[in-house]
């Protein structure tokens, strides 16, 4: 007897809530398992509507996609969240950077786990991007009409490398500065634009530039060695410039997948 009363009461409250203006303004439809509702679930959700509402059985097989592209995006999101949290504690100044890493390691609650997650997810993202690209190649998914999206993908691969590489410097330990020294030293050998590259002398005579202080490497490092100016440059690139460029291109990439007829499948 009481149970039925309770049930009635519940139904009453549920109706009031679900029929309220507020509820209806947030949730456009119910949870009924009908074909129409299944379509609505995808189409009326801002995050899910990246997907088509119906897709071929072939496309949802893990053995086909390896989930590599989607997981790359998930890892990008993990990196964004953990990265922003790390920004609360880290100062991109040569005097403080290493100390702040130690602060994260020993003092900040869950600081070390945040840093670990950021570091390992970055490695994971690099691996996943390469796997995704390999899968896309093996399934011929870059073929018409998807040629341009392959190019966007190649740029995203480069941006992923650059994100990882600029982040490598930020701990400001021996591993960081020497790895980045190896990387940026190559730039001084750039043809025409590096002071040790081919035709550098000729360019120097011609323009008066292309000295160790003004060449392709100093553009990256902000000086003749990896030092305080490099740290700031890499920090800004790592936290602002490249993430924004990456996010924009990810949107283009996903948009194109939809516009080019969804993920590839046998014709």
């Amino acid at each position, binding site marked *: 007897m009481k149970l039925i009363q309770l049930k009635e009461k519940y139904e009453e409250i549920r109706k009031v809530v679900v029929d309220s203006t507020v509820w209806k303004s947030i949730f456009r439809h119910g949870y009924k398992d009908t074909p129409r509702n299944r379509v609505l679930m995808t189409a009326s959700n801002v995050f899910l509507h990246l997907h088509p509402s119906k897709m071929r059985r072939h496309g949802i097989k893990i053995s086909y996609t390896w989930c590599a592209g989607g997981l790359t995006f998930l890892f990008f999101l993990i990196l964004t969240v953990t990265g922003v949290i790390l920004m609360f504690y880290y100062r991109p100044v040569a005097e403080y950077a290493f100390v702040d890493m130690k602060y994260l390691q020993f003092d900040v609650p869950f600081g070390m786990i945040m840093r670990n997650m950021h570091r390992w997810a970055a490695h994971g993202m690099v691996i996943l991007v390469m796997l995704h690209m390999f899968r896309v190649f093996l399934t011929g998914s870059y073929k018409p009409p998807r040629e341009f999206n392959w190019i966007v993908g190649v740029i995203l691969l480069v941006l992923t490398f650059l994100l990882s*590489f600029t982040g490598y410097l930020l701990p400001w330990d021996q591993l960081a500065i020497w790895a980045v020294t190896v990387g940026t030293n190559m730039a001084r050998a750039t043809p025409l634009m590096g002071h040790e590259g081919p035709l550098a002398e000729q360019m120097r005579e011609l323009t008066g530039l292309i000295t160790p202080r003004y060449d392709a490497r100093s553009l990256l490092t902000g000086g003749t060695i990896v030092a305080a100016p490099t740290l700031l440059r890499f920090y800004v690139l790592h936290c602002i410039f490249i993430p924004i460029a990456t996010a924009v291109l990810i949107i283009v990439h996903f948009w194109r997948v939809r516009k080019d007829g969804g993920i590839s499948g046998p014709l």
Partner: protein
Amino acid sequence: MAEEQKKIVPASSLSPDKVHTWPHLVKAEFIVGLISLILITVWSIVIDAPMEEPANPTRTPNPSKAPWYFLGLQEMLVYFDPWYAGVVLPSLIIVGLMLIPYLDINKKGVGYYTFTERKFAVSVFGFGFLILWVFLIIIGVFFRGPGWNFFMPWQDWDTHKVVALTNIDLNIFLAQHLGIDLLRNTVVQAVFGTGLIGAYYLIGVVFYLWKVKKSPVLQELGPIRYGLTAFLFLTMMALPIKMILRWTFNIKYIVTYPWIGLNI
């Protein structure tokens, strides 16, 4: 015929192989995402990210290694000058990757795994990715020690390991073995070396002229697409060729242009 049929058949039975994204795909995405999140979290709790002593610009470690994903490029520095291994080749890799969809006009093999229908494409990409990229990264991470010498992973990094290597340029190598002293002349070696590299790329042209009449694939490809493909392919193959020359004959450069600081 197929087009007409699509218009008549009701939408529900249009593609029997279609499923609703929600829940079929969303469910899979959710589960795979959840498992990945758990894995990365547990991994991060158990294994600490690397951290060395504070940066010290006066103490250079030996070896200085780039981040692991660039070690394939760093490995190329052994065989080429930095302007080529560090700047030109990476740029060519990126441009070459972007060109793939425009050079590969084989219509077969979309949306499924196949080797037989795309033998050339899959072999070349597989070689480039698995051998020249992944394998060189593995070498760089696990087998390179002080002085960028080879060390087995279980070997001590003995900094005194001396590798007596006298790398010599190709013209000197030939002058020694063939006794042609003229090759020691700077200008002669430059002309000779340029000719050799020219001849190497000429292989592509000769192959085209030789095969084009009998090969419908080459005809469809056309001279421009073929030229780009051949150039990129031969450039890629120059790396293993130069590696073998270095390992077997200690040959450093094929040609040098000392006036402009260019060595190949």
